[in-house]
């Protein structure tokens, strides 16, 4: 074994040019893996973390099952034509037993918090500008205990909602679109039933998630109940769990136990999750392709080495080195390339990530950020290292195996 190590290491360091080229391929593959994983997962993690912070893990709501044609269909089955554009009936969407739900689940061991919402749509206007918005009526203290909303408030004025029933918090992008740059401005809220309400902007919500910041308006729940003409009504119960992974189980259980529809965040964000999945597949495919190319590089270099060193392999076998020794000597070179490439790749990717963290560029899309959102998990470095060593080992194994099959007499006779 000692001899094998000695020979392999000496060959690796003596054949510097080939070794460096092969190692460079692995370095590039490792860097691509670590940096791309960090960027993609950083973005996805940020989005989910922030979205879950503000939206909770499970939402209980009234599912609309009303169909205009349900009575007709009972009689005529398929033989009817639906006329579109008919005036919809007002459908009650309140959760009537929310107090019961609150008291029943508040002490659940897996629950971090539970809060109540009244949600409705309307239009908000400032001066001549009008924008559609989602109004969310909240109990400010309860909301903050459950969803830590104050973390996302620019002026930290959540208490104003409690004290001043005319107060409103606007999503920062919505405020921008309306032309509101500071608090204290008066906006007009147009409810679905046609009533107008003058409210004072006391803060801005800045979650970094464009969709939320562009549409959400927070009010005290009592105020929104007045505006919408739904006194004491609640139409959403939001649960925050200790583990986000428990959400599907709880959603299923709550649907069964409460009689309302309970939706896990995985279901609410299924479109995003499937996009993220595709992103991960694409990233993995690109990295796999890069590592594959590196692997072919190693394969070629070790294969060339093996063919060049036929005579040396033959003499080693004549001196008593066995097939497994030859396999070890050349596979070890692949492993050394993988180890060096993996280590150098990790170091380089660490430096690249450090550098990327310092770059300040405005990113605006699904989310807004002032730079790259990176997930600096050590697991990407570990995975990158393991992949590097594995690919290098696999790429070197076949040439090593071929080398072990050389028959010394045939080599000596051929004079190669």
């Amino acid at each position: 074994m000692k001899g094998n190590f000695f020979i392999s290491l000496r060959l690796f360091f003596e054949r510097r040019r080939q070794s460096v080229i092969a190692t460079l391929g692995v370095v590039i593959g490792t860097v691509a893996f670590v940096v791309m994983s960090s960027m993609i997962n950083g973005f996805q993690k940020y989005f989910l973390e922030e979205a879950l912070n503000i939206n909770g893990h499970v939402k209980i709501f009234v599912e609309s099952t009303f169909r205009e044609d349900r009575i007709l269909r009972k009689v005529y089955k398929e033989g009817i034509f639906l006329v579109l554009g008919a005036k919809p009936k007002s459908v009650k969407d309140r959760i009537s037993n929310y107090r019961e739900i609150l008291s029943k689940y508040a002490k659940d061991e897996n629950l971090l918090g539970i809060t109540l919402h009244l949600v409705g749509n309307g239009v908000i206007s400032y001066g001549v500008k009008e924008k559609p918005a989602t109004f969310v009526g909240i109990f400010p203290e309860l909301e903050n205990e459950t969803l830590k909303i104050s973390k996302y408030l620019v002026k930290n004025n959540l208490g104003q909602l409690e004290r001043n029933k005319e107060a409103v918090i606007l999503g920062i992008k919505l405020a921008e679109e309306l032309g509101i740059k500071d608090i204290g401005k008066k906006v007009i809220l147009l409810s679905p039933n046609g009533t107008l309400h003058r409210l004072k902007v006391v803060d801005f919500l800045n979650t970094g998630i464009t969709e939320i910041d562009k549409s959400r308006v927070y009010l005290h729940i009592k105020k929104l109940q007045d505006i919408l003409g739904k006194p004491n009504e609640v139409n959403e119960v939001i649960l925050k769990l200790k583990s986000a992974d428990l959400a599907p189980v709880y959603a299923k259980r709550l649907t069964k136990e409460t009689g309302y529809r309970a939706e896990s965040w995985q279901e609410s964000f299924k479109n995003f999750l499937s996009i993220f999945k595709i992103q991960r597949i694409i990233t993995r495919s690109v990295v796999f392709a890069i590592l594959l190319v590196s692997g072919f590089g190693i394969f070629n270099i070790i294969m060339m080495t093996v063919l060049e060193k036929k005579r040396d392999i033959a003499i080693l076998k004549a001196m008593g080195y066995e097939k497994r020794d030859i396999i070890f000597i050349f596979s070890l070179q692949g492993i050394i390339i993988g180890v060096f490439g993996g280590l150098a790749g990790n170091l380089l990717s660490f430096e690249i990530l450090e550098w990327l963290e310092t770059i300040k560029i405005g990113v605006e899309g699904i989310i807004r950020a002032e730079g790259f959102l990176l997930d600096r998990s050590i697991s990407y470095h570990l995975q990158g290292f393991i992949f590097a060593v594995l690919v290098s080992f696999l790429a070197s194994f076949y040439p090593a195996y071929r080398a072990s099959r050389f028959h010394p007499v045939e080599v000596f006779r051929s004079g190669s």
Partner: protein
Amino acid sequence: MEADTVLKAENIKKLIGNYEILKGINFSVKKGEFVSIVGASGSGKSTLLYILGLLDTPTEGKIFLENREVDFSQEKKLAALRNRKFGFIFQFHYLIPEFTALENVMIPMLKVGVDLKRAKEKAEYLLERLGLKDKILRKPYQLSGGEQQRVAIARALANDPILLLADEPTGNLDSVNTQKVMEIFQELNSEGTTIVMVTHERELTRMTHRVVEIKDGEIVKETTPA
């Protein structure tokens, strides 16, 4: 079988395709002997040497090493026997170009588990003995043909083999280096090393104890040089 027989070949036949290279060779070497095998190109002398050195398997026949029959089916044992019992020298030195002279000589010792320090000491001693004291750290391309062959001899002696097998060891050397190599062989032999040398240069056989002549895969003559 005589007690001092180091190696014995019994009815060795070797077929490659339909062509019979060796046609039932009987041959033995006694301890301390210096035997030369001569013959024209293609006579089968190198094939015989490879079979004697357990590098190749005979189609038929038996090999006895120190009076024990060699089992050609066990590759691992054959490799161990080659490592511990034989030293090989070829027409081309077959030194590993990336290694120094010293490292080339160390390689067979490392296979048997000799530690690096001990292997280095012994390799230094062998190279010094062969007149290469100042060149131990040189790579093969930095040595002359004769020096390269002397490094190969030192490497063959690394594990104190019971038999030195040389296939045209001077075939690639000029007359001065040929003389030097033969003198080294004689010196080693006089110290008790058993040598079997394949050559086509008949004048070299005068320095050996016994000359075995092969023609068309058969031993046609055995003589003792005057």
